[in-house]
């Protein structure tokens, strides 16, 4: 039982992270190779507050999210105006810089030896609940005015601007919202494993998330969430294949990308979600 619960908890945390990538990459078309660093910001902020100041979970999470958003704002201001190829590079550089800072402030963060003894506040129901909340928030964002503007910007910035969309503003909004979710995933993670170290948040993790979103279908939130669950548990399912499992995983992803480039879900959304969203819009 404990085994299934731990898989469920980690999967829920992955789902939170994936909704953030869905918002940033799927909706706004921004390509962040340093998103894992925002997870680190959330994890370390909450972890330090909990261990050093004995802060309770909820305020620590709030501070974690706020720190993530602040970092996103600072990175976003100069970056989001650049061409898209450069956003990947700058976020990548930011990720490396954050890891360097974490390693170099050992008296606060524990450096490479990590931050230990974070109180395990994240229980399975908390993680699942927050995952559901994150998905609902992302869905509402998608069907809101801002979501539609994001999609317009992703498809054609010039056209979107000519229709009166504040391109830089909407990109910033998606980046802030997404990074808040990433930081949230980080706070959950820190309070589940009770231990974080800088090496966990390298760019390959950001790349893995992007792969998951594309696997599910970059235009489908349903797809992203389902892919997070499937690919999050796949290494677990393949555990018995030992060293082969990551190779099998990669082959599967290559097959999907090649033979079904729109991901397994394409642009499909669960009808239920759409109808709820419609009701939301009417109510709002």
């Amino acid at each position, binding site marked *: 039982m404990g085994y299934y619960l731990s898989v469920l908890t980690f999967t829920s945390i992955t789902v939170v992270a994936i909704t953030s990538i869905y918002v940033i*990459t799927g909706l706004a078309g921004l390509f962040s190779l340093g998103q894992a660093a925002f997870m680190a910001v959330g994890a370390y902020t909450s972890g330090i507050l909990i261990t050093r100041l004995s802060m309770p979970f909820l305020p620590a999470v709030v501070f974690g999210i706020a720190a993530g958003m602040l970092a996103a704002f600072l990175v976003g201001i100069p970056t989001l105006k650049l061409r898209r*190829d450069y956003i990947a590079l700058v976020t990548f550089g930011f990720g490396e*810089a954050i890891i360097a800072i974490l390693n170099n402030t050992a008296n606060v963060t524990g450096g490479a030896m990590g931050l230990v003894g974070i109180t395990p506040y994240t229980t399975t129901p908390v993680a699942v609940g927050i995952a559901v909340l994150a998905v609902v928030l992302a869905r509402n964002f998608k069907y809101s005015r801002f979501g539609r503007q994001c999609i317009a910007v992703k498809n054609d910035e010039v056209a979107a601007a000519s229709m009166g969309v504040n391109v830089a503003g909407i990109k910033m909004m998606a980046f802030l919202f997404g990074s808040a979710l990433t930081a949230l995933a980080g706070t959950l993670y820190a309070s589940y494993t009770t231990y974080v170290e800088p090496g966990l948040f390298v760019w390959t993790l950001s790349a893995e998330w*992007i792969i998951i979103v594309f696997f599910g279908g970059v235009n489908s939130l349903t797809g992203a969430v389902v892919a997070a669950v499937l690919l999050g548990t796949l290494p677990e399912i393949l555990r018995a294949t030992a060293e082969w499992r990551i190779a099998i995983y990669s082959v599967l992803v*290559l097959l999907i990308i090649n033979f079904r*480039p729109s991901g397994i879900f394409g642009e499909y959304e669960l009808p239920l979600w759409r109808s709820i969203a419609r009701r939301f819009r009417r109510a709002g």
Partner: protein
Amino acid sequence: MYFLQQILNGLSLGAVYSLIAVGFALVFNILKFSNFSQGGLITVCAYIGFMITRTFGLGLGATLALTALAGGVIALLVERVAFRRLRRKNSPLIYYFVSSITMGILLENLITIYFSSNFYAFPRFFARSTVRFGPFFMATTDLAMLGISLSSLLILMIVLYRTTFGTAIRALSMDMNAARLMGINVNFAIAGTFFLVGVFAGLGGVFLGINYTLYPQLGKLIVKGFVASVVGGLGNILGAVVGAILLGLLEVILVGVPGIGSGLSPVVVFVILLVFLIVRPQGIAGIIVKEKV
């Protein structure tokens, strides 16, 4: 004196990065995405080179040649498996990126599966480990690497700028459909480019293996090539080399700066990168080559 020696060190580090950055630039030039499968490719090549020397007991030259050839062939396979279908379906660029990262993970893991219960290293190819020029010195492998990367780069330039096939590759990178209308076999030309990328990965892999021993994550270094190639101007080959050498110099110099050292140099590199991209978004290449941004 110390400073000049540091510059020499930075140059040799830059030579390593430039072998990688050129591979990035070549693919970006044509397909407009950063090909992260190159890291896996380099790792595979390093092990292939090692197997070649171990099995046949060959010298450096023959090993390099055979590995470059093998690298080329593997790169053709990578193109076939990871990118050809995407191209046929006109997929957005980000799919190429996802495909390339996944391909890189796959290659790295295949190496892990076959080789990862021990460390391996190339035999020694040079009798003397350093070459001295008066008060300065340079590692023989670094010197060889600098020499071979510069000469292979020169050959690449000749191919690209002096042959019809090379001109076709450049034409392709500017306007793929117009190139088709000229009767250029685009699949063939792209395969040819990947072959070149594989050749560079082969050379790079052997040198990285010689210098840094063999382990499955050897290809991790490609991130430096990525930074260098973007700073150099996306898809510009000469720019990528200059970017790589500047990055090598910068890193070596930063290590010697009190208060920064190696630990905080990623932060400084990030800030410089950011300022650079804001001030000069076309990359370094704008200065050197007038060609496309």
